[in-house]
């Protein structure tokens, strides 16, 4: 015969054990990794935004020394305005087309920027301008941050997508988190593989 207190105690123990085993079997893994991947995407987007914020200053500085490079300058300004128009929400990360659109716009800006920096090599006064040097190093740093953030995002997506497909988390993906779709991946740094074309 079990006393009521003992029965209650048993219930508590059972509840604790259940919650332990559920979390040990990766119930939390999918939501956790999803949030991590989303946060990494926010990082990527922030760094692209940071780059976009630097560009007006850079264009203004270059303009002061190299007015005749109107084509290159307008290309940068146009690519920037296009790139800032394509926004991607964290809920749209599962849509590969949307992601491709975003990255294409950013890559176009990368190309235009590369041309601008290549052209500015021809202007010694500009190259020794302190403001330009500072902007250039900030731009380099931002490009590097973008590369790191993209790498982190790719890794986070890989982990999350693997969760959805592998045991034991796949059980939760097939039941409780049935609405969770794999996030779109993209290849490492396609912009780094094709250096900006310099035309003379």
């Amino acid at each position, binding site marked *: 015969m079990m006393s009521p207190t003992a029965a209650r105690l048993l219930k508590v123990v059972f509840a604790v054990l259940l919650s332990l085993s559920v979390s*040990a*079997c990766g119930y939390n893994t999918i939501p956790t990794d999803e949030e991590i991947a989303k946060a990494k995407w926010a990082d990527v987007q922030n760094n692209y935004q940071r780059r976009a914020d630097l560009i007006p200053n850079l264009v203004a500085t270059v303009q002061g020394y190299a007015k005749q490079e109107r084509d290159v300058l307008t290309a940068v300004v146009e690519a920037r305005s296009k790139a800032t128009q394509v926004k991607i929400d964290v809920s749209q990360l599962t849509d590969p087309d949307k992601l491709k659109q975003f990255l294409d716009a950013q890559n176009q800006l990368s190309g235009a920027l590369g041309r601008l920096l290549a052209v500015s090599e021809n202007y010694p006064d500009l190259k020794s301008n302190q403001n330009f040097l500072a902007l250039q190093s900030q731009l*380099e740093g931002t490009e590097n*941050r*973008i*590369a790191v953030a993209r790498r982190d995002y790719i890794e986070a997506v890989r982990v999350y997508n693997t969760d959805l497909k592998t045991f034991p988390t796949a059980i939760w993906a097939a039941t409780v988190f049935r609405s969770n779709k794999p996030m779109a991946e993209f290849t490492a740094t396609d912009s780094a593989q094709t250096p900006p074309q310099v035309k003379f």
Partner: protein
Amino acid sequence: MVIARGPSSCCMAGGVRLPFALLALLAACLAVFGAQFPELTGRIVDQANIIPSATRQAVEPKLADLEIRSGIQLVVASVASLDGQDIESYANALFRAWKLGEKTKNNGVLLLVAPNERRVRIEVGYGLEGTLTDALSKIIIANAIAPRFKAGDYGSGISRGVDDIVTVLTTDSSEWQQRPSLRLDNDQLPNWLTWLLVAGAIALVTLLIVSPGFRWLFFNVALNLLINSGSSRGRGGGFSSSGGFSGGGGSSGGGGASGSW
């Protein structure tokens, strides 16, 4: 209940060997990855053997002093090879492998020199990006480091570079000057707060005894928290009791600047 029972039994019985196999595989992978990086043996890691001992003796106390004063971990490293990577990727990976800086503040800085590739980089932890900016890092490399490296004088280049980094990090003192006062507040809780904590503890115990529902909730939440915190808790400081040196769990995201000579 039914859903929960299935997998829970799976983990306990059939899953025992699988994690072991996975762990072994992971360890093997880590060994491969770890082999690429030199070990963090101190504040100066001179794998490429370019730092004269006089420089080492002069610079090391400055680095230690910086951490004592501000908590910032500044590490100087030279590597024999970048393994075919660009210095930006290598420095970022090395920084993360060494986990420089405190986990919550990410206040680490890595000065990496690759003499064979003739590349140098200042990699800045997330938390210091606002102080040691990309532009400032670039200026330090261009003015203090690269010209001396060009002349073949690695010792004075590193020494001047460290001096300049320390100057930048400590001149913007608004952040760390507040630390002593904050610490004092933390050490001595105000009287009323102590009593509030005691009252809270008593209320908690009473509730645990009286209400079964609360008990259930408490054990679920508290135990979950305990389990989760066990895996994610970071180490705080740099020095362990044995006098060795290790990173504090910080990370970087590609801030800083690189240069060549």
